[in-house]
């Protein structure tokens, strides 16, 4: 039933994702300093009723740290995806203004797409000195090209639409046409683009942090938790990696499904 009803699927995905977001936002208030609280007599305890996801090397509850980590990833992903979308939209709009600018923007998109993502991410994050701000800027600066290419193509198509040509023939300025006719059409694309960028953004944030170029090791970010888990992997402390990894996977899947379902529905 649901398979053949794109709008219903989109609504369902949106509902689940909304629940997840609300849970993450609420957890920030509810957790307090639980993710940092150490219990020296319960270090590296396996999952149990007392410690749902087990504890880490300092006796900190892994469920609380996983939630805190997902919350950090969510905000970093949100800001990075938003910034990335703004860059993509701005450049696509710029490309629509003239053929020369269009060529320049296309060159920029092709250049960035030809460089491996992760290397560029590491270089930017390292150059900016690491930390949350550096990760957001690095992810935003590297994720816009695909969306920019889609938006540019859409704009070029829209430019030939009859109502746009009529508007121009009536002597309306380029800015007017862009602002009143083109951009409103692009907004749904932007929304879906941002949603599809989000899972990439959080995955890359986690990867950067895991590799030591991202967030500080003292923050309970998912990348930090996974990097710590790697150190203890040979000791058989499987829960250190499994729960943060699963949390990240679920969040990424939720947003990816929402994005693709919305695209189909719209």
């Amino acid at each position: 039933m649901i398979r053949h009803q794109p709008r219903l699927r989109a609504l369902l995905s949106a509902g689940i994702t909304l629940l997840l977001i609300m849970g993450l936002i609420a957890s920030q208030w509810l957790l307090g300093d639980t993710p940092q609280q150490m219990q020296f007599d319960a270090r590296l305890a396996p999952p149990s009723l007392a410690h749902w996801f087990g504890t880490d090397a300092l006796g900190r509850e892994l469920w609380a740290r996983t939630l805190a980590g997902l919350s950090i990833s969510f905000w970093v992903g949100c800001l990075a995806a938003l910034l990335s979308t703004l860059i993509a939209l701005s450049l696509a709009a710029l490309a629509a203004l003239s053929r020369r600018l269009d060529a320049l923007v296309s060159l920029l998109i092709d250049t960035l797409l030809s460089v491996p993502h992760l290397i560029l991410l590491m270089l930017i994050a390292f150059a900016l000195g690491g930390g949350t701000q550096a990760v957001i800027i690095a992810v935003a600066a590297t994720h816009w090209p695909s969306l920019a290419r889609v938006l540019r193509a859409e704009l070029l198509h829209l430019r030939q639409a009859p109502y746009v040509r009529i508007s121009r023939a009536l002597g309306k300025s380029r800015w007017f046409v862009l602002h009143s006719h083109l951009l409103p059409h692009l907004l749904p694309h932007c929304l879906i683009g941002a949603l599809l960028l989000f899972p990439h953004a959080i995955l890359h944030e986690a990867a950067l942090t895991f590799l030591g170029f991202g967030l500080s090791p003292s923050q309970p970010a998912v990348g930090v938790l996974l990097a710590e888990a790697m150190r203890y992997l040979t000791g058989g402390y499987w829960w250190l990696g499994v729960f943060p990894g699963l949390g990240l996977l679920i969040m990424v899947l939720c947003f990816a499904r929402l994005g693709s379902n919305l695209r189909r529905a719209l």
Partner: protein
Amino acid sequence: MAKPFRPILLGITLSCLAVASGVQAKEQLILAIGGEPEQGFDPLLGWGQYGNPLFQSTLLSRGKDLSPQAELATEWSLSDDRLTWTLILRDDARFSDGTPLTAEDVAYTFNTAARAGGRADLSALEVATALDDHTVTLRLQAPRITFIDQLLTLGIVPSAERDNGYSERYGRHPIGSGPYQLVEWQEGEQLIVERNPYFYGPEPTFERLVFLFTGEDTTLSTAHAGQVDIASAPAALASNLPAHMNRTIMQSVDNRGILFPMQPASGEQAASGAPIGNDVTADIAIRQAINLAVDRDTLVDVALHGFGRPAFGPADGLPWSAEEEQIAAPNLGLAAEILDGAGWKLRDDGVRYKDGLPARFRLTYPSSDTTRQLLSEVSAEMVRPLGIDMQPTGRHWDEIKREALHQDAIMLGFGSHSPQEIYYLFHSQHAGNGFYNSGFYANAEVDANLDAAQAAESVAQANDYWRAAQWGGTTGYGVRGDASWAWLVNLEHVYFTNSCLDVGELGIAPHGHGWPITSNLLEWRWTCD
């Protein structure tokens, strides 16, 4: 087969097996015991500063009790005015290219090292002179009790005047008279060394050593996969012993503690451009309170998993450290009183303030070091109830040097077989000298005691002055005085060693650089067929 041939055939078979087992005897060891020196294997630039330079020989070596023993020098003496060392060299020492090592090489090494500005501190040396092929004198500008450490640690390089002599490329292509010679060095990956056929001492058991330069994770993974014979294990992960390996523990004076910036932030910068000073840690009340609040036994238990002991100074248990320099148990009540008395008042947000300044500062640690991360996070947790917000911050070493070294509290480590390190750590003359005294500590009375120790007539007298610098009755660099550090723990160096490898009786390790476990390399034996 005819019966008479059977014993002959059996004999031939057994002989073949015996030969084969001889051929298969362990000739190569693979070690993952730490990093590589950035500047290469050049003693003039710091290689071997903690002893045992592997490729080179030193004039003297340390015995198990740390006393000086003959090495390249068979006899040595210090003149009555304590200004001239005279050393007689052995006559069978050769470099790995087969040429003899002479007094000219020793004089060249000392004179060049004094000019090179490396980590070997030869500022007291006036000149080194070769009197003949086997006699060398070292003339000092002023008496210096710790000069003997240079005889124990500075590896001798071939004079630049000879073929294959010292050059700028030496660090990458070292030639020395030590037990091994370099075969190949792939920086960041591995170092391969083989026996030096001209080594004057007993022949090392193993023909070839391969040193792998891997991170903590990879080292442990390779140990668990049985691909290395010795692997250093961070204390936090040392309890998980790989199959077919033993846990070998080397006692050490390798310590970890919090170095505090001692000057208020005034906008000054060090020569490196790094900002100097921190208004919070410049207050002695903060430093004393932290020293009183941290529970060192718990730190050993949690961060080192029991592989260590509490530390109260830079050289606990050594003759130049004051035994009384201890804090019996954490005392949060007294720490709070000290803070109250100094005007640090607790507010509703759980942090103390003094004239609007919050008791908040970064505690920076190298993000690649698990042990330092754990120590930082746990000690920050321990001082939080006092209202001191120490913020553990992981950074790359480059970042630490560039930005944090003189303005953040830093989780550092030292530990040496020589009191010379005390001089570097606490004398104002060494303020901002790399990691030494990077907190810009300065106390005239401590300086005077340190200078008096260097000029002392005997080791015993010098030790009195070293201890007085730690606590002289009214002041000192130690926990009873300026509390310039919060020393936390002394590490035990933990290695996973192949169960067939006997590493003999290990000495006491200094700070981890320079592969301290190799100090008794010539005693290592393979015990399996």
